[in-house]
Each structure stands twice: as structure tokens, then as C-alpha cells.
């Protein structure tokens, strides 16, 4: 099972890397923000998998903080940067 967790974590990390292309390309600012949202969710999944693989339950706390704070950056984008330009 540990091999499965690590293999899936590696797969998700590759997904994250592929998503970088959208940050580089994305014609509008919204596209770049979308990619950042996907990175946040993928990082949460990677942390949960690593928590099970290493048996360290404290990693779930890190995933919890990630999940909560991913929204704050996106809301700051919508309410500040987008309102101005």
C-alpha cells in the first residue's frame, strides 16, 4: 500500500507540474489564478497521501491549513487586483 500512496503522490506532483503551463500561458489573469487553485487542491491530496504513507497524522493538520488558506489568496485576487485594473 505504501508504494501505491507514494506512486499516486508522484503522479499528482507531475499533474502539478503540468498545470504550470497554464500559469505561464494563460491569456487572462483568471487563468493563472485557476491554476494556483488547482495547485492548492493537488497539494492537499499529496499531503493526505503522504500522511498515510509515513503514518504521520500531523501532516493532516498541514493539509487542513492549506485547504483553508487557498481560498484567501483567490478572494484577495478577486476583490483587490481585479477591481483596480
Amino acid at each position, binding site marked *: 500500500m505504501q508504494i501505491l500512496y507514494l506512486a499516486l503522490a508522484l503522479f499528482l*506532483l507531475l499533474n*502539478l507540474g503540468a498545470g504550470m503551463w497554464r500559469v505561464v500561458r494563460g491569456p487572462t*489573469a483568471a487563468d493563472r489564478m485557476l491554476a494556483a487553485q488547482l495547485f492548492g487542491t493537488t*497539494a492537499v491530496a499529496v499531503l493526505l497521501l503522504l500522511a498515510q504513507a509515513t503514518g504521520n497524522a500531523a*501532516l493532516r493538520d498541514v493539509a487542513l491549513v*492549506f485547504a483553508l488558506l487557498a481560498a484567501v489568496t483567490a*478572494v484577495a485576487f478577486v476583490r483587490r*487586483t481585479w477591481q483596480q485594473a
Partner: protein
Amino acid sequence: METLTVLTWIFDSLLAMGLLWLAWRCLTCPDLFNAIVLFVAFGLLMALAWVRLEALDVALAEAAIGAGLTGALLMAALAKLQSTKTNRDIAEKSEKNVTGVQLLQCVSIALLLLVAIGLGYAVLSLPAYAPGLSIEVSANLETSGVSNPVTAVLLNFRAYDTLLEMVVLLLALLGVWSLGGAIQQRETTPGPVLDTLSRVLVPVLILVTAYLLWVGAHAPGGAFQAGSVLGAAGVLLLLAGWRPRGAMMALPLRLILVAGLIVFLAIAIAIMMIERQLLEYWPAQAGVLILVLETAATISIGATLAALFLSRCPQVEEYK
């Protein structure tokens, strides 16, 4: 097992390469917004790197501050830059003297490569196992009042450093406030979705703050991590259009901002007056003292980070 180590190696190398690539793109990107998003992604990968290095307290702080709060602060700063149109002026001025700039860049890259090679040699020649002070820390852990060695070091053995860090945070806030900042534009009303999101997320954020504060005694967590989550709650409230009453922004805000430092100083002075060294706790009361210090520090750090987002000293007249 062999496949396990191979997978871990591939994971770690991908992480390292991703960090390097993101850092390069972030620094060489001409568009500021693009750079901010890349910086937030860099913070995410950095937190994963800390997790792989088994430094979970740092990973918590990086996730809260690096990926969340810094992203929000940079977005707000970019909004102010765009409103005053200095962004375009900076881009125009850098078109002159291209050959001189390129020569300077080549020299800088050569120097940096030398430094990187030197650093790599120094790191690779370190002994494989370097315990540092961890033996002394684990020997004295029972007298420190907590069972998480990071919290023991931060709040007991090196509490003096934490005291000075509180001062540093306050100085940073004073620096940001003294810059003045642009006039606040009128904001559009938040829609029902943003309103509901703030009403649901902020109580959860406050609960997670209390949880991280409590769990920091025996698991990764602690005052700084809890304080940054609380700061994120404050930032979310400000973004969703909540404003405290005018009376709250004068003296009560200042009191909350310095509460952590005052409690720290009071406890330090009290201990010194009862004939002990600076911040040397009695082992029996150490746990309670650490909890009191951490609670005050959490509230102060949260208020400081949210006040940084305000970006100018709140005038009471604006909030009537």
C-alpha cells in the same frame, strides 16, 4: 524496499527541480501578476519540501504565511501599484543601455555560480549525522513543560529570541503604517457568495487557530502558526467588506497589537524579580506559563498580520 526508495527519490528530485524552475520563472517574469501567482505556487512547493524534510512546524508556517497571507498581501500591493500607474513607468525606463546590462548580468551569473559551487562543496563535506543540540534538548525536555521539542526551544529554552521576534513584527507593522498608503477606493458590495463564505470560513479559521495553539504542546503547531491562521481570518474579513466600529480602531486595536509583547515582558520581569535568570521558568509551572505566553502571542500576531493588510494606520474618522 527498493521501489519505495526509488519513488521517494523521484518525488524529491521533482520537487527540487520544480522549486528551482519556479524561482527562475518568478524572478525573470516581466508581468507582476504572473510573478505573484508563481510566487504562491513556489510557497506551496516549499511547504511540501519542508514536509519531506520532516520539519512540520515550518511547513505549517510556510503554508499559512508563504502560500496564503503573502499572496493576499502581494495582490493588494499590486492593486495599489496599478492604481497609481508606476508599473508602466518602471518597465519603460529599463530599455536603455542594453549591452552594459548584459555584461553586468554575465558577471553576476559567473559570481553566483562560484558561490553556488562553494556552497555545494561545503554542504557535501558536512558529516552525515550532525545532531547539533538535539541531544541536550531531548535530555531536558521533561523540565520544559511541553513535549514538542520545537515549542520547547521556541518558548522555553530560547524564549528570548521569541520575545525579540514579537518586537520585530511590531516594527514591521510600524514601517508599513508609516508609509501612508494610497487613499482607499470605494469597494463594491460583496455578493452573497463572498458574504456566506466569510461567515462560514472565519469561525472555522478561529477554531483551527485554537486547535493549532493547543496541539503545539505535543505535536507540530504553536503560536506563530496559529497566529498566522488568525491573521488569515482577519484578512478574509477585511476582503469581504467587514469593518469594525470606529471606536475599536483607536485604543483597543493598539492594545491588542502590543498585548503579546506586554505579557512576555511582564512575565520576564516578574521572573527576574523573584531572583531567577531572565525567562527561566520553574519546571512545575512551565507548561502553564508557555500556554499563557502562546495565547497572548497568537492574538497579537493575528492582529498584526491583519493590520498589515490594512496598509495604513486606521484613522478613526474613516470608520464612523
